[in-house]
Structures are given as C-alpha cells and as structure tokens.
C-alpha cells in the first residue's frame, strides 16, 4: 500500500510538471513536441526489456510478447527522436 501511494504521488506530481512545461511550448513546435512525446512514450521499453529478458522465469510466449513490445518501443524511441531532430534542424537552419 505504501509503495502504491508513493507511486501515485509521483504520477500526480509528474502530470503537474508536464502540464507546466508543455504549456510553455510555442505552437510552432507542436509537431516536434508530439513526435518527441512519441519517443518518450517508448519508455515502455523498460517493461519490454524485463519481459523479454526474464529467461527461465517466463515461457516462450511471455518472451515473444516482450520481444514484440521491445521492437515497437524501439521504433518509437529511435524513430521519434530522429524525426524530431530532423524537424528541429529545419527550424534552426535560418535565424
């Protein structure tokens, strides 16, 4: 129970932090913001690694599901950060 309350606290506070930072992002950068958040939502990779790497604790199916999750999360991370950078470089080109 203690741990759950702790996690909930972190969740709620992080939502507030997110709200504060993201309202400061100018409309010009809203598309990079979305592709960037795609990359950040790839954080599910943490769970995917734990599932795919469970070894003998899991079975073939749990490992396969973990592997698929890992592939998708990595697409989000690599694709998201790279395409965001591509866009942001366009904004930088001319001052």
């Amino acid at each position, binding site marked *: *129970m203690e*741990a759950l309350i702790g*996690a909930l606290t*972190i969740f709620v506070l*992080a939502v507030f*932090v*997110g*709200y504060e*930072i*993201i*309202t*400061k*992002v*100018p409309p*010009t*950068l*809203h*598309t*990079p*913001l*979305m*592709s*960037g*958040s*795609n990359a*950040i*939502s*790839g*954080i599910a*990779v*943490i*769970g*995917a*690694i*734990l*599932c*795919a*790497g*469970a*070894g003998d604790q899991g079975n073939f199916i749990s*490992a396969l*599901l973990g*592997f698929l*999750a890992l*592939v*998708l999360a*990595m*697409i*989000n*991370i690599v*694709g*998201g*950060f790279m*395409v965001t*950078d*591509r*866009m*942001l470089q*366009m904004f*930088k080109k001319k001052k």
Partner: protein
Amino acid sequence: MTLINLAYLVAAIFFILGLKGLSSPRSAPRGNMLGAVGMLIAIIATLVNKEVLSFGWIIAGMVVGSAIGAYIARKVQMTQMPEMVALLNGFGGAASLLVALSQFILTPNVYHTTSWLVALTLSALIGAVTLTGSLVAWAKLQGYAEKALKIPNQNLLRMVLGLGALVLAVLFVWQGGGLILFLLMVASLALGILLVVAIGGADMPVVIALLNSYSGLAAAATGFVLMNNGLIICGSLVGASGIILSKIMCKAMNRSLGSVLFGGAMVSDEQMASIPGKEFYEGKVKSCGAEEVAMMLENAQKVVIAPGYGLAVAQAQHVTQELANTLAKRGVDVKFAIHPVAGRMPGHMNVLLAEAEVPYDKLIEMDNINPEFSQTDVTIVLGANDVTNPAARDDSASPIYGMPILEVDKSRTVIVIKRSLSPGFAGIPNQLFINDNSMMLFGDAKAVLQDLVRAVNEL
C-alpha cells in the same frame, strides 16, 4: 536496486529538461538530445537489473526496432508527419498492451494484488484502444477512409462495448484469469476502432493529440504494474502533453472534446439542409490573373500569406517561399499567418514552411497577426478555406459561428488562390470569396505561384 532507481530519477530529469528545451526553436535541438540521453540512461539501468537474465530476445528486439525506427525517421515526408505520429502513438499503446500481457504470464499468482490487477487492466485496456484507434486514424490520414463512417446506432454500440469492457475489467480484477484478460483485450481493440472510425477528417488533429495522450497514460499504467518510477513519470509527461494539445486544437475549431468524440460530423444534417448551394457565389465572385496580382504585390508595402493544407497538397511550400523572397527583395514586408489548425496536426504548417526554409520568426500565430490585417495591403489566401470565413465571426446562424478565424477580410485586398469554389471541411460556402475586396485566382497553387513569381520578376 537503489542505484537503478536513482538512474531512473536521473533519466526523468533529462526528460523534463529536454521538454523544457522545446520552449524555443533555438534550444529545442539540444532539448531533444537531452531526452535521447535520458532514454539511453533508462535503458542501460534496466539492462543491468538482476531480473534480466537472458539477452538473446533483447538484443534481437533492439536491433530490429532501431533499424525500422531509423528507416522511417529518414524516409518520412514532412507532409506525412501526421501519419507517422499516428502510427507511433499506436506502437506506444501496443507496447504497453504487450508488456501487460507478458507480465500477466510472468508474475506468479501470489503477487496478483488488487492494485496490481487494476494497473494491469488499465495498461491493457488503454494500450489496446490506443493501438486500434491509432491504426484507424492512420488509415484515415492515408485517405483510405477519409469521411466519418456512419455506423447505425454507433453511439449505442460504443456504449454496449464500453460497458462490456468495463464488466470484463471488473471481473478480471476480482477473479483474475487469462481468458477474461484475453476477452478484455478483444473488447478494447474493438472499442478503439469504433471510437475513431466515426470521426471526420477535419477532427483528426484532435484525435491524434488525444491518442498521443493515451499512449502516455498506457505507459504510466504499465509503470504501476512494474512499480517503476521511470515509466510512471514519462507516461504522465506524455499524457499531459497530449491532453494540452487536444484542448488547444478543440479551442481552435470551437469544438468541445465531447462533440469531436461523439458528435460525428462538424455540421449537423439540419444545418446542412439550410446551406446555400452554388447560387451563393453566382455573379458575385471576381476573378483575376497573375499579372494583375503581381502588380498589386509590387505596389504593396505589407503582404501577408495565409497558408492552409491545400498548400501542402499542391507541394507548393518551396515556391511560396520563393515568392516571399522575391517580394522581400523588392522591399515588401512579407509575413505568414498561421491558424492553429492550418495543417493536419498541431504545428504541422510550421514544420512544412520550416522545411521550405521560411524563417520561423516570419510565421505569426493567429492571435498576433489578426490585429495586423487592417494595415495589410494584400493578403494571399493559399489553400485555406474555413479558417478565413468571416461568417464564423459575423453570422450567428453559421454552423461554424464562434470558430476563431484569420481575419484576412480586414486587409485592403484579399487574393484567394484556389482550384475551384468547392467548400472546405465544414462543407459550407465562404463569405470571403464574395466580399468586395476579394479576388479569386483560380488554379493549382504551385502553378499559380510559379506564374506569380515570374510575373513579379518581369515587372
């Protein structure tokens, strides 16, 4: 374990600083880099976790995923960013769903506490809805099913399916059981399809932003399954971001989130019946040629270009910038007026123009440019329609009344470059086209602009 959790904290700090960097185009590339570093830290911290016993699947998954991600990121066209974001939203949701299923298999029954089961249920449910919802959104953006699909009794069907999913969720938390989880997943996948399939193309920016938020919330729920702070923090950051963007988009279209999700089309059938047809424009539209417009531009001191998605469809971004440059060289002050829903996703038009090397300080947001129109000599409306319709401001009977618009009609002369008089997403005629100070320049945006550039240069 303590060290690993500390590493997640460091990663979270990097993510927050990274997002903070997005507050200006100048600091944004560095911010994005900080985010990527944060992700690297989180991944390494997880790999050294002693619960990770075998690396075969992990390495394979990383290599395959990274390769696909890098390929897509390089190949995607800027006009297709909405499709890419929609797809990645779906992948994010799917990853959370798959992790939830895998965790259910992995975790021995003794650890199935109520809170764990609730988290697992949310993670699977939101993940599944995000997955299929995003795939439908992607298909719509690709043009496979652009219109709102009318399913008979769709709201009833959604309600039944939603309630069904809820019952299954409660049952699962109460009893556990793989079969119920499987049924819950199937119901949620169907629900995702049903929720998005009935939403029209004009509302897609809202839908993508909302699904963006869902993908974050699914990740946060997964964080509760694993009791992992890294996931919880990142998930909630993304969740907050998506919600804010959906709110902004709704405001820009004068729609409530509820009416986007449950209302179907933007204009109701009764309103549709009272909309005038072709006779609205009959004899009232003035058209002109490129030479005439070139002359006006030449004599202008201040020109504003109001681009819409038609500009991107015609692939006319670069020639637009060429025209702006040509005029700027002749001492004309040229700015771009950007409506929040000018593209097909938040900020899309800005990216398209940035790609065409339009400096970002020339892109002026709606609220800042509107007071300037009264001092503008010529405004060129390029593939934008509903967002320039003065009826939204003046005519309380109009279906789009109250929607914030670019007040282009206040400038001395308005040139509308358009293929025909066909209506925009709202399906209504545009008052702007018959105003006394408006002139139509018919044709494909790209071809017309090339003519204009040539005509200006010949002067």
